[in-house]
């Protein structure tokens, strides 16, 4: 187990390094420097500015300096928001994204697994149709369509909830974004859970458990649930990546001041360092999450040998 963990950790490092390097080089391959703006500055000021941001050094030194500061947890300064470092911007945006994303992930795991269990136990029942319908909705109605539709119904039509915005972690403003992300995640989780539980219920050890005369709820909860959950665990990695996509959309649709909004605005303003910093940060987070999920999977699944 320890050697497997070590091997996986070591193989995650090149991924992160490649992403950082490629992004960094791409950024520097673009014509135009950060300080060729409309306003002409004197040569001395320009030289000072370039020295401050190490732009006077050769590229490989700049790159190493950037790597060093990233390793120290410093993502640099924003090009557009003069008084802000990327770290400040991230620090103000991260809690918003974390609470929306985390909340919806927990909620959708609970709901998705529960719905999946019921759908698998009662095939062709109402719950089963609901899960399949949700699965279809999730795969064909994209989040940027579903979001506005939710707003039309619940904010404009029924006027139950605000159409968007963020009021210092007030619950009313979180409901619709979390619901949107949850619906989309539940569609995948429910479908996978249903499929895997049906498969497990057909296996021999379940037949043995039933033959012993155990009641259904014990058979399902004690014997079938754990192996059936494995595919759901392996789903968390891809789900986290796709929820970054949905986070970008959700935060745009509901105008939430989160990481997604930050990156979209940064891309719109061509704020290179901000976008680079966010891409680096989120890549490192996702690679780390994937690593954790893989390790959890190896730990949970006795069939995996390392």
């Amino acid at each position: 187990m320890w050697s497997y963990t070590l091997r996986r950790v070591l193989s995650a490092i090149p991924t992160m390094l490649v992403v950082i390097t490629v992004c960094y080089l791409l950024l520097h391959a673009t014509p135009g420097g950060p300080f060729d703006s409309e306003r002409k500055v004197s040569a001395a000021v320009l030289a000072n500015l370039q020295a401050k941001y190490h732009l006077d050094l050769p590229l490989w030194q700049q790159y190493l300096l950037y790597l060093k500061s990233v390793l120290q947890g410093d993502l640099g300064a924003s090009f557009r928001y003069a008084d802000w470092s990327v770290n400040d911007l991230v620090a103000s945006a991260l809690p918003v994204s974390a609470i929306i994303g985390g909340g919806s992930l927990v909620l959708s795991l609970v709901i998705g697994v529960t719905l999946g269990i019921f759908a698998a136990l009662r095939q062709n029942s109402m719950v089963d149709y609901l899960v399949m319908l949700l699965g279809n909705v999730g795969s064909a109605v994209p989040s940027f369509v579903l979001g506005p539709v939710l707003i039309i119904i619940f904010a404009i039509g029924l006027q139950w909830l605000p159409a968007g915005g963020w009021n210092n972690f007030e619950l009313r403003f979180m409901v619709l974004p979390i619901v949107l992300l949850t619906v989309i995640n539940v569609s995948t989780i429910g479908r996978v859970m249903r499929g895997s539980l049906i498969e497990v219920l057909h296996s021999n050890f379940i037949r043995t458990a039933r033959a012993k005369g155990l009641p259904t709820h014990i058979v399902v909860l004690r014997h079938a649930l754990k192996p059936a959950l494995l595919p759901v665990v392996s789903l968390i990695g891809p789900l986290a990546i796709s929820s970054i996509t949905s986070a970008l959309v959700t935060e745009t649709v509901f105008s939430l001041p989160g990481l997604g909004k930050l990156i979209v605005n940064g891309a719109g303003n061509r704020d290179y360092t901000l976008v680079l910093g966010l891409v680096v940060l989120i890549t490192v987070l996702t690679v780390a999450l994937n690593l954790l999920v893989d390790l959890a999977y190896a730990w949970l699944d006795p069939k995996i040998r390392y």
Partner: protein
Amino acid sequence: MLKANEIEALVQGRSLWSDARRRFMRNKAALVSLCLLAFIALACVVGPWLLPHAFDSADWDAMSAAPSWKNAHFWGTDDAGRDLLVRCLVGGRVSLTVGLLATLASVSLGIVWGATAGFIGGKVDSLMMRIVDMMYAIPYLLIAILLVTILGREFYLVVLTITVFSWMDMARVVRGQTLSLRSMEYVEAARAMGVSTTRIIFRHIVPNLLGVVVIYTTVTVPGVILTESVLSFLGLGIQEPMTSWGVLIQDGAKAMEVTPWILLFPAGLLSVTLYCFNFIGDGLRDALDPKER
């Protein structure tokens, strides 16, 4: 005693593909989806020529007008007075073209990558697949955003960006299939009967590979269209005055409180198209790979 050519005549009869076509034709949902999709594609191609309005000219008498038959704005107009139906169809041209081009490119890349890895095997295989694993762990939309930020928002750059991040599924599937096909019993049997390698490849490997390729292509198309729409929706894809479904949905979302149809028509069109691709993909999977059910 039957002669050899008579036996052949008896045994031939149904090929893999005619079998698959028969199974696909029996699948109502897939068939309806195929017709609907063909209709949407046809409408996108010829529709803008037949309708009286241009996609980028404003009708000053009808700004944000509701759908009506009188002035031939069948789906209404947007906030600049441009006919929504024509814009949706023109946007469909762009979205579908991006979908087709990016799919073509990523499918080709995936097949070559996967087949190479599968055939060569060994160290090359594990290195190539390590790269695929790496690509999977990257939050691709962010890199796409970075690329679009840096390179600009040209049409072909959007296609390129989407391609770079959508070929891995195909590579994985083709590699797996190639690996398992190489050691199949019927390939071994063919070899034992003295069938030449070229004939084995074209008679046994390629048709079996084509099945998964076709299935995963239909899965790739909606994914690619969706990615383009997300980029455009975020304002980072296709640019005005050119339009795509993502752009139209973004425009609609801005104005949905007063004029919801500007959102609902393109959103509906996109969703119907994605549904169609999903059903066709399911139908093809059932038709080409009956084991999988």
